[in-house]
Each structure stands twice: as C-alpha cells, then as structure tokens.
C-alpha cells in the first residue's frame, strides 16, 4: 500500500503541491495524471525521498524514508542516469547487493531478455541510448522485487516492443500483489492498466476515479471531463 497524507511542497514561495492526499491500496495500479507543471514529478520525487516536504508518505504502513520501506520500494525516474563505468549487468548486480534482493540469475536473464537487453549486458552506462537507459532503469527497479513501485513517465523513450512488455509487466506485478503508481500524461498508454486515477492540476488533485465505480469508463474521457480540455473529445 502507498499512502500520501497532506503532502505539501514549496519551492521558495512557489507552491508546487498543495496538501495532496491519496492512497493506492495493495495490488492496485494508480495513475497520476495531469498536464505539464501540475506537480506530478514533485509528488513522485517526494515519495522517492528526493525532496523535502511537509506531510506524510507511507509505504506498506512504514515511513517512506525508513530503510525498511526503501528495501521494498522500486523507483523508475523520468530521466534515467546510469553509472558511466558500470555495465548493464553490473547495474543490476549493484541493485541486487544494495537491496539484498533474492532475485536469481535466471530471473535476471529473463528480465534482460524481456527488454531485449541480453546482448547489451556488457555495454557501459555511458554507451547506452536514452531508450536503453530507460530499459535498464526498469529492469533495476524490478530486480528489487518490490512491493511498491513508482514509475515516472516510464514509456518515454521506449520502443513499441518495450512499451508492450512494460504494460505486461505492470499487469503481472498487479497479479503478484505489488502496488504500482505511474505518473504520466500519455493517456493512451495506461488505459488498460489503471485501477485508480488521480488527476492533478496546479498542485492539487482535482479528481479521483476508481475503475470499478466508473464501470470501465475511458480514462481519456474522464481526464478531459474534469480538466475541461480536449475539444476533440
């Protein structure tokens, strides 16, 4: 479970996130939607423990900054940054050791295969394209075997095959009882994945929808219905 309580973040005088609260229950996929500058990335970075904030963030009922919470928490940032001198395989090995993950060799091989990285294992971080970095970043987050995973614009830079694979991975994680939060503005990409959607605007959540209650309504329609944009709709 991922709980956000009264999260507030200011940059100087600018209020980026204003008393935001929401919960993604265990085994569900939450989507954080919103236009550019809505405050999505600020929330994601706060949950990942990268920013100072007021309010509370809980991961499986533990404070997000505690080491116990971090052990079961995977994070895929919007802009991946690799260690220049580490190979793809060494990135995953680092994660395995840093998180004391029990991921087996075969599972790593399978993961790399799914994201078409098996022949890039020996490539150094500095030699990877942006798309490949994104794939490595996703593999690293999955290598933790997380109970809660945060994906910030995960589809950006991925090729169609990797996007398809990632969607399947998210659904598999959900089946395994992993809590997933995806921040995106690519509505098309997440329309088959969501259980809950949180629509943000100007640092506030202006709408929350539960898929069951909405009877499988289209995420795009829900978004434009509440934000008032998208004349084409």
């Amino acid at each position, binding site marked *: 479970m991922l709980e956000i309580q009264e999260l507030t973040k200011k940059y100087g005088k600018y209020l980026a996130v204003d008393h935001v609260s929401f919960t993604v229950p265990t085994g569900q996929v939450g989507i954080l939607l919103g236009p550019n500058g809505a405050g999505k990335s600020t929330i994601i970075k706060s949950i990942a423990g990268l920013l100072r904030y007021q309010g509370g963030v809980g991961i499986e009922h533990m404070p997000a900054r505690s080491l116990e919470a971090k052990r079961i928490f995977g994070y895929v940032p919007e802009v991946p940054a690799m260690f220049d*001198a580490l190979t793809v395989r060494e990135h995953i090995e*680092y994660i395995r050791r840093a998180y004391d993950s029990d991921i087996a060799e075969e599972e790593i091989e399978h993961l790399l295969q799914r994201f078409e990285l098996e022949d890039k294992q020996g490539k150094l971080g500095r030699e990877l394209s942006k798309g490949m970095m994104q794939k490595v970043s996703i593999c690293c987050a999955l290598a933790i075997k997380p109970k809660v995973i945060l994906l910030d614009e995960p589809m950006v830079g991925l090729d169609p095959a990797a996007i398809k694979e990632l969607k399947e991975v998210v659904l598999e994680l959900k089946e395994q009882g992993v809590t997933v939060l995806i921040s995106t503005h690519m509505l098309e990409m997440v329309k088959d994945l969501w259980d809950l959607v949180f629509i943000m605007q100007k640092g506030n959540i202006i709408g929350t929808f539960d898929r069951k209650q909405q009877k499988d309504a289209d995420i795009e329609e829900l978004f434009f219905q509440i934000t008032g944009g998208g004349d084409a709709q």
Partner: protein
Amino acid sequence: MRGLIYLYKRTIINNIKRALKRPVTYIWLVFVVGYLLLMGIGFGTMIEEGNFGTPENIVAILSIIIFAMIPGNIISYSRRKGLLFRPSEVHFVFSAPVSPKMVLMFEGVKSFAGNLVIGVLIIVFGGLWFHIPAWQLVVYFLFFVVFESVLEASIIIFCFGNEYFGEKFYKRLPVVMYLFMAVVAGTALYKLLNGEPSFSLISEYFAMPVIQLVPVVGWNVAVTRLVFLGPDMFNLIGTALYLISVIGMFVFAWKMKCTGEYYEDAMKFADDYQKMRQNQKKGVVNIPWKKKNKLREATVEYKGAYAKAIYFRQILEYKKNPAFIFGWNTLLCLGLGAAIAAVCYFNDAIGEFGEARIFIVPAVVSYVIFVFSGYATKWSKELENPYTYMIPDSPLKKVWYATKIEHIRAIVDGILVTLPGAVVLGLSPVMTVLTILLYICLNANKLYYNMLADVLIGNLFGNVGRSIVRMLFQGLAIGIAAVAALIGGLVIGLEVGFFLMILVMGILTFAGAMVASLSFNRMEVME
C-alpha cells in the same frame, strides 16, 4: 553498504581497464611521471642546497597546506556543496536502502583518500628531505589521516545531514566563515606589511598564538607544531582543543538524526554540476556568481538568405542580450590594453625599444591569444544545431557567417587592447591600424585553428590534446608570419615587414578556415 562497496570496486576496475586500452593514457603517464620526477629532483636539490630541510620549515609548509585546504573544504561543506553527487547516484543510491549518513561517507571517500595520499607524501618527503624521525612522521600520519578524516567526516554529516537547523542557518554559516577567514587573512596581511618579506615570516605568522587558537584550522597547526617542534603552552592548548573538537563532532554526528533531507540539495547540485561539466567540455567559462541575463525584446531584419540567416539570427540573439556582443572578454581586453600602456609608460619603453617598440603590443597579444584557450560563444553552438548542417549553402559560407560576429567583436577588442599602448608608445595611425588588424587576424587564426584541430583529431586526446594541436598549428603560423615580418623588415622597412606579417597570417588563417569548414559539412565531426 554491500552495494556501495560493489559500486566503487567495479567503477575503479572498469575505469582502469578502459584507461589501459587507450594509448593516450600511456602518453599522459610518461608526461606525468616525468614531470613529477623532475619536480621531485628539483625540489630535493633546492632543499638540500638551501639548507631548507629543517623541522621549522616542514611545519611552515604543512601549515600553508592546512590553511589552503581545510577552510575551503569547510566553507564548501557549510554551503552544502563540497560533495559532488552525480545524477546516477541520485537515481540509484538515494533511493536505495542505505543510511543517508553512509551515503555521505561514501561520497566523502575521495576527500579522505586525498588525506591518505597527502599523509603518505608527508611520510616520504618528511623523511627524505626534512630528515624527520620516523616516530614523529607516524604520529603525524595518524593525526593527518585518521583524526583529520574523522573530523572531516563529522563536519560533512553535520553540514549536509543536519535537519534541525533551517535553511537560514546554512545561508549564514558560510558568511560567518568567510568573515572569519577574512580576519585570518587580514592578520597575515598585517604581518606582511610590518615585516621583511621572507619565508621565516610565514613561520612567524603560524607561530602566533592567535593563529594557533583559530578553531579547527589553527588547532591543526598547533598539533603540527607539537609533533615536529615539541610542546609549548599554545600548541598544547590548541592540540587539546583539536582532540576535544574531533571527539565532540564525532559523537554529535553519530547521534544526529538524518533521514536524507539533504538529497534535495544534492540533487540540485548534481544537476548544476552536470551542466557545468557540459559547459566546460564546450569550453564555456563558468562564472559561479553570474546570474542568468534577463533578455530584452528585440527584432532583426534578415537581409539575405541561406547561410546569411545564421548571422542575422545571432545578431537577434545578441540584441536581446543587455551587453549586446560584449562581455567579460571586452573588459579583459580593456584591462590588458591599460596594463600594456602602464608598463610601457613606467618603464620608458620608447627609450628602451626604439623603433622595435611597434612589436610590443603584437608580441603581448600574440602570447595571450596563443596561451589562453579562448571562450565559447554563439558560433560554437552552431555546430550543435542540426539546422546548421541542413541549410542549403556551402560549408565555407556557413563558417564565415557563423563566425562573422566574432570578427566584429575582435575589431572592438583589438582597439581596446591596442589604443592605450599605441598612445603611450607614440605609434603612427597607420601602425595602430595595422596592429589592430593583426589582433583581428590572430583571433581569427585561433578560432579557425581550433576548428581545424576538431576536424583533425576530434575527441581522441580530449580538450587538452585539442588545445595542444591548436597551439602547434598556431605556433607554426605565428612563426612563419614572424619570419615574413623579419625578411620584409630587413629588406624594405619595418612597416612593410609588419604588413607582410598580417598578410601571411591572413593567408594561413584563410587556409585553416577552408579545411576547418569541413566541420560544417557533417555533424558527426564534433562527436
């Protein structure tokens, strides 16, 4: 913890493996080892011959090192900027289940390793050059490597990891530190102004009780004096205060609550540092205190098409800039011009050099242009823009229009550098104009030969390698032009010699620009 150890181990091994595969590593290695050997032998001989190898002198040297290193480190830590986190660490380390204090310690390893290297050097050279007994060196090593690293680690945790004091505290702390260091520097200046300038003055300065009692830095000096010179009241007090501060800071840092709030500042600094590194690679000078210029509204009329559009777009960008095409370099040129004039005036250059005085300004500017690598301006950014390559025009025209403003700027800079000296030296108007022309020519030469070096060797030997190649070509061009000037001067007259110098330089520069225009042919040249 296991992850961080693995990370460091693999990074070091992979970097060494990669370096060993590159021939340039061996070339640099020969240079560095040769340089260090020469320096070592030179210093050794100097110390022996000058009877410099005394405990008092090693204390003075170590005190200088302490005052040069420690305050700077503490100030940068207090500004929460002393540790360089990279974006990859923000991504993979900050979110990992590692104690934020441990993350700080792993980042501080480079600094602690620096202490270790200096500690080893002190043992080696202290024994070899200063004939210090081994036990004293071991005790000092213990102090400099172990105690100092513990103190530094504690200061790092206090400054970065402290979540009790607010942002205001950390904004004021560096100011207080700067003021404090200003007082220390003021004391040094007072001592310098009231004594005979000599090395013994430095020893006297560090022997002052007030200096030995300066918190942390002065206490370090006190320990150094106690170890190498024996006890006195002040170094005993300073040492006691030092040990108390190490233990106190260690306990405080150990017990202090730290949940990782500093990650936000570290992340921002990582981004800024990344930008700075990218700028450095492009040759852009980073001025830390310089804020981004606010742009004005401006318009431009495009009088031409194709490659000319590059020039007019640059004009539009510069018109939006409050200082137009001028900047720090303009001020530097003005300063250089004034300095040349002042030196010539106070040293009676006219009487000293006679007719040859016309070469004074060209010689100084040639040297300055030759040695300094230059600054990146809008023209170099053209090479990063794909549209530059797609404009349907010849590469030579693109080179010309992309760099045209540089030549206009060179005219202004040339006037600023030349005019003050020309007035003092009593140069004729023709000679003054010729000197300005030469400056423009030298500037253009440097610009195009930099491009030429890019075309010829790319990134094979890094920025330094590129500068060396550029200097080789430019040195050759200046040499040929100087020979032409000499011949013209001897056969016909000084003015003609001077004109020949500009002509030859101009031809060589144009030839360089022709070859360099290849870099405007396809984008991959720059990669």
